[in-house]
């Protein structure tokens, strides 16, 4: 093992290799590594954020669904109530109408009965007078006996 110039040659070669490595090898490689590290961190971050957004969206969707269901139920209930109300109103109106028609019919019947009674009374009075005339065979003063005949007719 002789120590000779080789030792200096080696030192010089070593110096240049280190210099080259320091300038042209190490920085780009570590830069790539650092950048990838950053990218991965960002990716994980984004994934986490997306997951959180998804969870929020799901919750919101569920809320909306529940609200819609409640609203729909309320509308149906209101509609049912309204329908019942309309039916009740219709029933009421029909009943009133029927009553009214019945009352009108009754009134007409009564009126006709009264008319018939009047007519009958008048005919009875005339018949009574004619009967009395025949019985008496004499003219009776219609005016003098009208009061009597009316009284008779009223008693009928």
């Amino acid at each position, binding site marked *: *093992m*002789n*120590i*000779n*110039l*080789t*030792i*200096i*040659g*080696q*030192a010089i*070669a*070593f*110096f240049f*290799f*280190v210099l*080259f*490595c*320091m300038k*042209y*090898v*190490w920085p*780009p*490689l*570590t*830069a*790539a*590594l650092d*950048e*990838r590290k950053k*990218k991965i961190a960002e990716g994980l971050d984004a994934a986490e954020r997306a997951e959180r957004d998804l969870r929020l969206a799901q919750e919101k969707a569920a809320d909306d669904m529940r609200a819609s269901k409640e609203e729909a139920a309320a509308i149906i209930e209101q509609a049912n109530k309204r329908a019942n109300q309309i039916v009740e109103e219709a029933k009421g109106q029909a009943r009133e109408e029927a009553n009214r028609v019945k009352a009108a019919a009754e009134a007409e019947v009564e009126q006709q009965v009264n008319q018939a009674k009047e007519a009958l009374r008048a005919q009875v009075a005339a018949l009574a007078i004619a009967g009395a005339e025949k019985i008496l065979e004499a003219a009776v003063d219609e005016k003098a006996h009208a009061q009597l005949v009316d009284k008779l007719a009223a008693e009928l």
Partner: protein
Amino acid sequence: MASGEYTSQEYIKHHLTNLTFGNHPEEGWTFSHGETAADTAQMTKEMGFWAINVDTMLWSVGLGLFFIWLFRKVAVSATSDVPGRLQGFIEVIIEFVDENVKSVFHHKNPVIAPLALTIFVWIFLMNLMDLVPIDWIPFIFNELGVHYMKIVPTTDVNATGGLAFSVFGLIIYYSIKMKGVGGFLAELSFQPLPKIFAPFNLFLEIVGLLAKPVSLALRLFGNMYAGEMIFILIAILPFWAQWLLSVPWAIFHILVITLQAFIFMVLTVVYLAMAHEDH
């Protein structure tokens, strides 16, 4: 193995001899050569400091270039979206190094992490050459007329020393930069014993300081040299028995080469973290 031509001793020596180009006192600038590996080693020794292990430089720089080519290729097309297989693999290494650096080094310094990455991957690649069957590449070079070729740069103490003393330089640089010359000297002189023992402390601490690069260099060198030696010894066995030992040793060695690269990296980061800390 080429046992027909060499004795076992020659074979081992041959495998442990670098291809060296240097300034010989008598022959001038030339490749080390000789009748035997021992002669070649002797010639290399005579060249002294002014010689260069061509095989070590070739393989280490080649592997270093492969490292920066591969990582640069991925870095250019790096995407922060889904990564491809290659990018994923490179990212695993980057994150592994980055985590280790962050757990030890708490100051802000853009040099440390790329430094650790370079050390880890480069040393790992150099160690990995140990798993290439030891005769293949030397055989090819031998056919081409190059007789010595050690393909594992980390079995050359110059390679590990070059790394370790570069780290040592950084330790000194950052110690002075963070604490000033006075602060650094104070740190060396005023502990562990009280201030009266300053010269003794200084001596102790300087020894400790110098032990850091030496231990870094020798730990890696020793482990890889020993591992290589075992592969060479296994290669001396008859060819039909080699796999019985070389396969388990190679599998175990996968652990060793990774661990040694890792240890070198972690200790470098620890030493530099200590250099940054103010006591």
